[in-house]
Every structure is written in structure tokens, then in C-alpha cells.
């Protein structure tokens, strides 16, 4: 089948200097048969994606684990803040707006996505949550001074 697909390329009669493919065996076999002497490169991105599959899966599970306990709480907090925002005035309104931004930040953080093989959602979520936590600690410190 793959040889039939590649037949028009052979019919063109142009020199083929090399081939690149993902790791599909049918393509590998067809290229080896049709152009036995050319370099055949496997897409390195595909190779690393396949090699890192269990690592990525572990990261994904971790993201779900982190998101689960936070998601419901942050929704409630945002709802609560939205209600407060409607009645708050003056400095309280400013404070509520800042807290709403933080809550939105947390919501955004727990929904960050990854992309195999290099970007990991679990790590991104964790780093973002840590950054928010540090920022909140700073705010708390300033408030106490």
C-alpha cells in the first residue's frame, strides 16, 4: 500500500536525497525497499514523544490530583467574591478586586495545558500555584507591617 502511495514520487524521476518519517513501520519498510541507499531519518519529535509517554502520563495524573481539591474551592471563592463585589465600596471594593484577581489566577493555573514531549501541564500548574502562593505571602507580610 505504502509503495503504491509513493509510486508517483518515483515516477517524477527526481533525485531523492533523504526521507523523513514518523516511526510507522510500514513507511520504514517501504522507504527501505524503494530507496535503500538514502538516509532515512525518523522525526526526532515523534521519537521523543513516544519515549516520554509514561512520564507525560504521570505528569497528567499529577495535574488532575492537584486540580481536584482546588477546583471546587476556587469556584466557591470566586462566586463569593463576585457577590461581595456588587455590594462593596471604597477600600473594601479594591481589596475584593485584588482577591478576585488572585482567584482567577488560581483558576487559570489549574487549567494550564501541556504539550508532549517538552511541556508538562503538572509542572506548569505547580509552578504557577507556587508563584501565586508566594505572592499571597508577600501581600500578607505587607499587610502585617
Amino acid at each position, binding site marked *: 500500500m505504502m509503495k503504491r502511495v509513493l509510486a508517483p514520487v518515483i515516477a517524477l524521476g527526481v533525485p531523492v536525497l533523504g526521507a523523513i518519517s514518523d516511526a510507522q513501520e510500514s513507511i520504514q519498510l517501504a522507504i527501505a525497499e524503494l530507496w535503500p541507499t538514502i538516509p532515512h531519518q525518523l522525526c*526526532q519529535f515523534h521519537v521523543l514523544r513516544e519515549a516520554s509517554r509514561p512520564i507525560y502520563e504521570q505528569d497528567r495524573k499529577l495535574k488532575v490530583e492537584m486540580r481536584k481539591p482546588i477546583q471546587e474551592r476556587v469556584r466557591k471563592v470566586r462566586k463569593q467574591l463576585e457577590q461581595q463585589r456588587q455590594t462593596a465600596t471604597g477600600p473594601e471594593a479594591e481589596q475584593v478586586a485584588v482577591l478576585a484577581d488572585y482567584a482567577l489566577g488560581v483558576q487559570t493555573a489549574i487549567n494550564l495545558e501541556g504539550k508532549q514531549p517538552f511541556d508538562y501541564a503538572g509542572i506548569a500548574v505547580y509552578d504557577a500555584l507556587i508563584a501565586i502562593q508566594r505572592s499571597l505571602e508577600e501581600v500578607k507580610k505587607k499587610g502585617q507591617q
Partner: protein
Amino acid sequence: MCHRWDSSIEQVKRMRAWVLAAEHILDGSWAEREEEVTNQQVGQRFDAWYRELQALAQSGMLHDDEQHCLAHFLQVLAHLRPHLIHCYDVAQFPRTNNEMEGYIRAIKTRYRRISGRKNWDAYLLRYGRRVAYYEWWARVGSTSAEA
């Protein structure tokens, strides 16, 4: 709040470092001069690094999850190694087909919209050759015709 996940995240970060290390070797960014990036040089670096990871896998120092992930990582790389490092000795030979896949995906999206169908298989069978030829001509042919 987040510290209960510290050790699990550290573990994933350690494992991601294997992937990034492989990418660093394969992308040739370690070389001071472009000429140094050859199949032989990249291959030597890659194989030396692979042996280090093999030693790590055999050290018995890893957590079960890490051991499992590393075993898979090494197995896939060993299996695909014969075709992994061939692109460096041929000028302009890409090491990934991402660009090509992205190009094909963009064409498919555009013509699916043009065809007005959710599934454009029938359109593809009827007009696919012309679409491919036109897209090629629009990208390369028009510039060479001007020259």
C-alpha cells in the same frame, strides 16, 4: 497549599530532564561551530549519554515509577536509534517533520472550510491532487516563475 506535591513534582522534573537532555544533544545547540554537528558527533554524544542513563537504570537508586519510565524511555530510544541520527550530514535535511505536518494540517483546515463540509474526504478524493499542486505552486512555483 502546594507543598504536598513537592516530591512528586521533583520526580517528574527529574524525568523531564532526560527528555530535555536528549533534545539538547539532538538539536546540536551544544556545538560552537555548525560544522561540528555531524551524524558521527551527535551519535557519539547521544550514545555516551544513553550509557549514562543505562547505568542509572541499573543502579537501583530510582523510585519504582522512575524506574518504569526510564525503562520505557531507554527501550524506545534503543529500538529507534538506527534511524534517529541521519539528518546532520545532508544540508537542509530537517530533523523533525513538524513543519511539514503543520503545513499539511493548515491546507486541510483551509480546504475543509472552502469545501464547506465537516468531513472533507470526498472533496479530498476528487480535488486533492489539484489542491496539493496549487498549494505547492503558490508556495514555490510562483517565486521560481518570477525568477
